């Protein structure tokens, strides 16, 4: 299922907000620091693992989502630290950066870090922070979007301002 511009900008449209969505529909803003590039590449690589296979359009979706998330100083620092930890482990255990690993190795690494069973915590162990800032960050983005909801049969998932029509519709509508 294709993640689209609708998924990327839905919250903005509903609120009439003026938050910039530079690069929406492409790969994001053009002037990015090395650290920012590492975050975006690593998060896209992680999304390719934690999102189901039938989802496409991941790179544009994730980078656009991060545009609004990385504007928060504290959150950006947390994401950056978690991403750095993931890449450190990748270099140590698999001799390459996380984005360069195969999908199977990326999946294994996240589990070896402990992000599958860890509680999500902002200030916790590496496993807990990776769960919060990487895995849950990406799952929050997907499953509160219309496309993520539709994967489950819920076109207006919690967190998405999808209006007041869908709750009235039956499953065949």
């Amino acid at each position: 299922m294709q993640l689209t511009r609708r998924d990327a900008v839905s919250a903005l449209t509903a609120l009439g907000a003026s938050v910039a969505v530079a690069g929406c529909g492409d790969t994001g803003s053009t002037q990015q620091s090395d650290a920012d590039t590492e975050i975006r590449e690593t998060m896209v690589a992680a999304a390719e693992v934690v999102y189901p296979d039938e989802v496409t359009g991941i790179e544009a979706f994730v980078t656009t989502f991060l545009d609004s998330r990385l504007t928060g100083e504290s959150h950006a620092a947390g994401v950056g630290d978690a991403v750095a930890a993931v890449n450190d482990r990748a270099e140590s255990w698999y001799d390459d950066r996380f984005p360069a690993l195969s999908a199977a190795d990326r999946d294994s690494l996240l589990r070896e870090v402990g992000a599958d069973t860890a509680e999500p915590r902002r200030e916790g162990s590496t496993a807990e922070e990776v769960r919060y800032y990487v895995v849950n960050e990406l799952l929050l983005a997907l499953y509160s979007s219309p496309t993520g909801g539709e994967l489950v049969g819920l076109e207006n998932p919690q967190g998405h301002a999808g209006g007041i029509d869908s709750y009235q519709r039956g499953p065949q509508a």
Partner: protein
Amino acid sequence: MSGRPPAEDIENSAGATDRTPVDDADVCIVGAGPAGGLVADRLADAGYEVVVLEAGPRFDPTDRLARQEKAIRPTYDRPAVWDSDPERDAHSNSGEWFYPLNHARARGVGGSTLHWQGMVMRLHEGDFNSNSERGVGVDWPIDYSDLRPYYATAEQELGVAGGEMPFGPPREEPHPMPAFPPSYSDSIFADACDELEIAMHPVPNARNSESYDGRSQCVGYGTCQPVCPSGAKYDGTVHIESAEEQGATVIDRAAVQRLDHDADRITAATYATPDGEHRQEADAFVIAAGGVETPRLLLLSDSDHYPDGLANSSGTVGRFFMDHLFAGMGGTLDEPTRQNHVGFLTSESHQFYDDADDEFAPFKLEFFNYAGPSPVGMALTGDDWGDDLLGRLRDDYGTHIAMGGLVEQLPREDSYIGLDESTTDNHGTPVPEIHWNVGDRALRTIERANEIQRSILAELGVDIEWTAGPDSTGPAYHHMGTTKMSDDPTEGVVDADCRTHDLDNCWIASSSVFPTGGAMNPTLTIAALALRVADAVDAAL
């Protein structure tokens, strides 16, 4: 999805910059929830110099989408959504029943309407005459007819979307907005209810079914409880902001520590702020701090003249603490039920409400639109991801169905709010002691509500998986009854105008004045009483 500012970067910088007292204030209001906001708005509009003291912070409305992240992510518990502070909001429990106070309230400008569900029904006529009509409880010193015009105004002020209420009390005018249409889930219930001759009808919602009062139509975020990012759900900030536009002063992070007084008047409110302690004088005082903090403040303001607490000659301050009890049941069907698109209800049944007597309490039935877990919530709380996670979500979402209900509990002297002198808050002040007890009539009524719920779900063929019955019920987070209204100064704290019997210049605008609770969500009655208090203060000044 995009445009989601992160929760952890909420700065909370929207508060007052000057927390010093206001000169020559006519009215000082304690509490900036819906009651305090409505009184402030009315009296500021009438030309009075009004100051509102709020213990909690003022939240930046632009942070609401970030707060929604707190509501969704399991890392944050419910009190964290509106920045509950464990030290500031400390309390103790000593009753037979545990009361999760900080899940049950939000402290700050807007009060608990920041996190409320937004259901707004009028009490029924019989609720005002429980003793004479049902043989239990007490009668209010006012009748439905006294409150009826204020209910109509309150519905206009809050913005209520509603339809015909076949079992409701008499009314002349329709609700200000049309009701939200019934849900697909409601249509599943409808056949079973038809068969069982149980009437379904719309829910009056303080939520915009169309644009209203400069606020948007509901956009379906699905997180009404605990946060509405669009502002379509009414909250107390609406009237606080209106009051400010008319000249009122609202001071946040101003925790009133005591009310200074002589024998028959309050002279000043002493309040603690991050910048130190101040003293606000005024001609009239309105306490609008809810069913827990209102009695706490009176008890903290004891003196030689009032050794048991201010305005407590009757000895009833803090007594008769009540809430509504939840009765519920749910399970799964073998067909899609389309839950969790929105976070509010569209259908209820009040058919059995007025069957109440001395054995059974009034109760109402609710048809849920958000039965079962939300997929995004499930996604953030598993050991899986990728295709495995999607498979789990598809297995667990889609067929849940559930009912709820609220049941009245009677006022009891052994259910009360006191002071825990052994524990202090961030200002070194004794915290509220919650001693919540519930009687057999409420528990019997929960069983009765469960019987009806079971009959409906059985008619539908639901595989019933959970029941919230007498042994597993909980409070609906409606704090009522701790400064009771009574004509008799020996029986209650305030008179029929909500003015304290002991003090000439002190009114209470809160569900704390309810002599009995009925089984309707209380905020519309709180709002109607607040409007009536505003008239009384205006007449007295």
